[in-house]
């Protein structure tokens, strides 16, 4: 079987393949699970990339400027809903984590595990612990930003955010406990990673809201 080249698969995945070539490629995909999987993987990757911040401004340290502005501008400023400064910092933090985590967890094909409870090698656990540290650092930085900005959110919004952060933390604790009991396989690591992603995403969103409102 002759497989389509990578360029065609990429173009198909992101919807830029010329229309005339689509039926041929789709015909191949119908009978080729490997290429189907590859396209699915690319689309998941593209979807993850699409979730990344739309823009950041690298190359200069924004934190000092942001912090001083936030302290001065604790009151709502609804006439400037598209303020981006803190969002840029949050974006940068997320980007740092995503760049490593996506590479490790998302871009790599899903592990061909037929069931839960597969063995985890020490190397994987060590690697994951490193990932966890990166998440913890990113989360701590975002929480610090949010602490400064939270007074600009409505009180009821703060309550709902805290309530849902607690939901995510409880899920993280459950997953970590399962891992600690050594009764879980690589899938639990993936689930735990997703929960960290959920927490990062929520912190990033609420930080953005705080700077917009």
């Amino acid at each position: 079987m002759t497989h389509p080249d990578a360029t065609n698969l990429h173009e198909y995945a992101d919807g830029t393949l010329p229309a005339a070539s689509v039926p041929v490629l789709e015909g191949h995909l119908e009978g080729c699970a490997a290429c189907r999987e590859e396209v699915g993987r690319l689309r998941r990757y593209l979807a993850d990339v699409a979730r990344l911040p739309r823009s950041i401004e690298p190359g200069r340290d924004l934190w000092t400027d942001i912090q001083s502005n936030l302290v001065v501008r604790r009151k709502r400023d609804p006439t400037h809903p598209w303020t981006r400064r803190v969002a840029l910092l949050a974006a940068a933090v997320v980007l740092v984590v995503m760049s490593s985590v996506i590479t490790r967890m998302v871009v790599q094909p899903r592990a061909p595990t037929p069931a839960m409870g597969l063995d985890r090698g020490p190397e994987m656990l060590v690697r994951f612990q490193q990932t966890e540290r990166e998440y913890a650092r990113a989360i701590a930085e975002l929480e610090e930003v949010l602490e400064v900005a939270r007074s600009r959110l409505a009180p009821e919004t703060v309550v709902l955010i805290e309530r849902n952060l607690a939901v995510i933390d409880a899920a993280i604790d459950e997953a970590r406990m399962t891992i600690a009991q050594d009764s879980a396989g690589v899938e639990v690591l993936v689930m735990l990673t997703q929960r960290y992603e959920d927490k990062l995403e929520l912190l990033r969103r609420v930080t953005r809201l705080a700077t917009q409102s």
Partner: protein
Amino acid sequence: MKRLMLLLLGGMTLANGVLTAQERVAVGRGAARDGTIKITAVAGVIRVAGWMRDSIAVTGTIGTGVERIEVFADDRTARVQAHTPRSVVDVDSTLEVNLEIRVPRGSYVGVRTVTASVEAEGVEGGIDVESETGDIRVLRGGVRNIYAETAGGNVDIAARSKLIRAKTVDGNIGVRNALGFVELATVSGRIDLQGEALSQAELSSVSGDILFDGSFERGAFAFSVQTHGGTIELRLPATLVADFDVRVLKGRLENEFGPATGGLFSTGRGGPRLDVTSFKGRVRLLKRQ
């Protein structure tokens, strides 16, 4: 334009006497038929409706805490902004607006609010709504893409679009008539997706339930559903051909398409891949009647 202004004035007259504590507004301006329109308001209700004219018309009322409605437009972009005093800290009823905003049908409309709910209809170019706690509704018609994000509000999408992304924190997300690509995410809200021609979907929650009732277009690729503790219920065509990857760690699985233990299984070659992952939530894979 004269007729437009007469209509606007007529609308103003009809509203008279009902909203005595608020100021009526009626503003019109020319706009590109497929440009970008940004709308901002703090609280109240925003209704956006596409129409066949190359103009923007804003009618309705504004609270006493709202200084003015500004409508600005150039060749490609327009802005409708409810200005409020910079010193305002808390959102209260004086900041509420109740606006109907007519925009050219082909516009791409972005709306930002704090607590205001947003309802859009007949806007074909695209809709991008972000709110702190307001509800978001996208009604009838076809829209190129829809992006809806609210922390505390609900999202309800009935319009057809080939690209839908919606996120809440604890609000519910309902999408009907879905087709193409759909990505829905929530922490503790409920996701309810219905559609008959999906090509790819990603649904995720932490504790919220996820329901899907629908089918896939020919050539669909991936359908991914994952939760930590919510219930997942997928009602799929009884004859669905697909490759399943179902992983339920601590929850209960009810599987009418394959083994009761889940794992990797297939109902035939050439269909989409369905990944279903749950840590402790119940999972039900049911055949549609």
